[in-house]
């Protein structure tokens, strides 16, 4: 089982009927030359990379830009088109007065499997008191949160909100809540590592390719910035495969990971088993 934990479906043709909305997505994500693709192509790309399931992430910026960049209902629509291949997450702008109501609707009515939050583009500090009702709902419904962490290439998304240390209060205050700090919190890798080894409920993903080729960048990350056996020895069960598609091509990141030299069991965990645990797909 291979699971891509980090896919932005803004250019899936089935939710790109409105040209202005598609252009708005290009601007919000900073993906200026990305064009819509049909479902057949998306599934072929997943097959080519050997990916069984992709986690689709919406984005609600209601109070920031007045836009829901990708809506929860659009994600639900896409999951319905290929329910064996897609896992849908929710997004709520935490500053919305009805954020909790919308999140309950996502879990109860839309059947979404987790929550994506982006402190940088949604402009909140993860430890802020306004977040408590949202975290409590995720605990109540046993849904994980995928947080953007570290550098964001979205144009209006300061990294200061998403520094890994910002998430320590969440990890500490909600030990039953599974949280994934995406992108390894790059460039603050040491902070991410500290949280991974200390808090059982903290995970990270591999959706980063900010310099060099995937092979070179992952070698730098996993073998030079970190000790060469840190992942194998210490948190082989806490790193999830994620591509950040369409920003980075899933097959390239998978090939890069396979060249790092992880132990076979570690690689198997990263590519899918850890996500099965994080998403509680065992049942």
């Amino acid at each position, binding site marked *: 089982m291979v699971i891509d934990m980090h896919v932005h479906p803004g250019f899936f043709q089935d939710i790109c009927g409105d040209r202005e909305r598609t252009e708005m997505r290009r601007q919000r*994500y*900073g*993906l*200026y*030359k*990305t*064009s819509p*693709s*049909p479902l*057949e*192509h998306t599934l*072929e*790309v997943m097959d*080519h990379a050997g990916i069984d399931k992709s986690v689709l992430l919406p984005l609600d910026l209601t109070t920031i830009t007045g836009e829901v960049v990708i809506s929860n209902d659009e994600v639900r629509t896409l999951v319905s088109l290929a329910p064996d291949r897609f896992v849908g997450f929710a997004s709520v702008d935490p500053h919305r007065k009805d954020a909790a109501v919308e999140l309950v609707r996502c879990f109860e009515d839309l059947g979404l499997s987790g929550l994506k939050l982006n402190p940088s583009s949604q402009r909140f500090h993860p430890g802020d008191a306004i977040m408590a009702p949202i975290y409590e709902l995720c605990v109540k419904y046993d849904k994980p949160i995928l947080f953007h962490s570290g550098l964001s*290439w979205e144009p209006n998304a300061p990294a200061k909100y998403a520094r890994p240390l910002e998430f320590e209060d969440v990890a500490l205050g909600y030990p039953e809540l599974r949280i994934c700090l995406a992108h390894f919190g790059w460039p603050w890798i040491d902070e991410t590592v500290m949280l991974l080894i200390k808090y059982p409920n903290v995970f990270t993903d591999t959706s980063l*390719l*900010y*310099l*060099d*080729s*995937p*092979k*070179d960048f992952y070698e730098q990350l996993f073998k030079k910035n970190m000790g060469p056996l840190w992942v194998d020895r210490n948190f082989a069960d806490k790193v999830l495969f994620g591509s950040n598609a*369409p*920003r*980075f*091509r899933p097959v*390239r990141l998978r090939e890069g990971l396979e060249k790092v030299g992880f132990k076979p069991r570690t690689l198997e965990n990263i590519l899918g088993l850890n996500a099965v645990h994080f998403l509680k797909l065992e049942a």
Partner: protein
Amino acid sequence: MVKLKTVRLRSVREFQMIKITGEVADFVARSGVQNGLVAVITAHTTTGIMMNESLPCVEEDIEEALERLIPKDSSYMHAHFLPSYGTTGGNSPGHLKSMLSGNNCILPVQDGKMVIGHAQDIYFVEFDGLKMRSYFIEVIGE
């Protein structure tokens, strides 16, 4: 007279030679041009238009030769973040293979038909699949 057609296709492999001889010949025959030229031109920088013999062994040799000359992993300068795209350049081999292949081919049109050698076929060649692609067929003549 000038007649232009845009053809869209979806590549399903990273390297893929897609034979388009029939598509080009049909458009020439329906264009109304009796004598002139037909040009086939790709719309991309990591694809090519190639003419060669349509034998599986030749296609395999072409793929392997290009891979030997331009391996997937090398110290390509293009492998960096591209702000104008919002993505990291990961397809330098595709650009270089496209350079070797060229972006077009031209054939004569005589008596309303495309003129082509008996061993020749026209290929749209994908060097950076899987992608949504397009190419142009333009017939120019009288």
